[in-house]
């Protein structure tokens, strides 16, 4: 049954891709520190940086539309948005370092970062 569908090279490729994926899960995601920040950026520019441990509601309005981002009990989520797909709201609540919420139509990226400056900023352009 299994051999009807897969060859040796398939299995090697499967394991390789799986490892690269799991590597990302393990290495890019740590528990957020108390000093972790929530970075909200649009079009590659950070427009707001707020501490993860401080509750707040942020209305992010850009030329593309608005997203309402809630930070509460160390969790971040998008509660409301006027984008067509509402995918940003389906990301759910993020709470770990390296997790992201994306809203592609609004060019919006919300991410949690343990390091205030380095990390993602070093690789974003």
């Amino acid at each position, binding site marked *: 049954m299994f051999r*009807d569908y897969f060859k040796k*090279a*398939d299995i090697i*490729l499967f394991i390789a*891709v799986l490892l690269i*994926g799991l*590597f990302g899960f393990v290495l890019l995601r740590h528990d957020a520190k108390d000093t972790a920040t929530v970075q909200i950026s649009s079009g590659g520019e950070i427009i707001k940086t707020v501490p993860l441990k401080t509750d707040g509601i942020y209305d992010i309005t850009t030329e593309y539309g608005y997203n309402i981002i809630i930070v509460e009990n160390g969790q971040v989520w998008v509660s409301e948005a006027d984008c067509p797909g509402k995918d940003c709201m389906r*990301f759910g609540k993020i709470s770990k370092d390296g997790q992201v919420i*994306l809203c592609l139509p609004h060019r919006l990226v919300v991410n949690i970062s343990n390091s205030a400056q380095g990390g993602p900023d070093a690789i974003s352009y």
Partner: protein
Amino acid sequence: MQYHTDTKQSGSRRIASCAVLTALALIFSYIEFLIPVSVAIPGIKLGIANIVVVVALYSLGAKYAGFINIVRVLLSALLFGNMFSAIYSMAGALLSFVVMLLLKKTDKFSIAGVSMAGGVAHNMGQLIVAALVISDLRMFYYYPVLMISGLITGIAIGILSTIILNYTKHII
């Protein structure tokens, strides 16, 4: 298992098969548009239209499969989507197709393996274009989710395609 990528078939017959498969791919795109699988995880799609592309790749050949792929993306963007979603679909579809074509040429991978690589490449292509459009590399933090999901959906699509090819090898 070996499938004929060329002939025994007349040109007009292949063109007819190609047209039928293009229509089928369009219907699959529409079904996927109606039932979004991304309810649980954003950015995830089952990619059932890719069944048609894989089947075409192994029955009609690369030229026809590529044609079906491009026409499907353009028409479904025109009919059900918008130009914004078309950029992502096209990036995913093209990268996925190139990867599948190359892996098929090596002759070391099964249909399911080729489709699996295609699924992963599809998601990665979309992510790369998204990073370019938003000009923010931070979104690559989302790559593990897209990679693993592409792996799973690609295998499912590949197994389905193998079964379909078995049943249809005398027809198309």
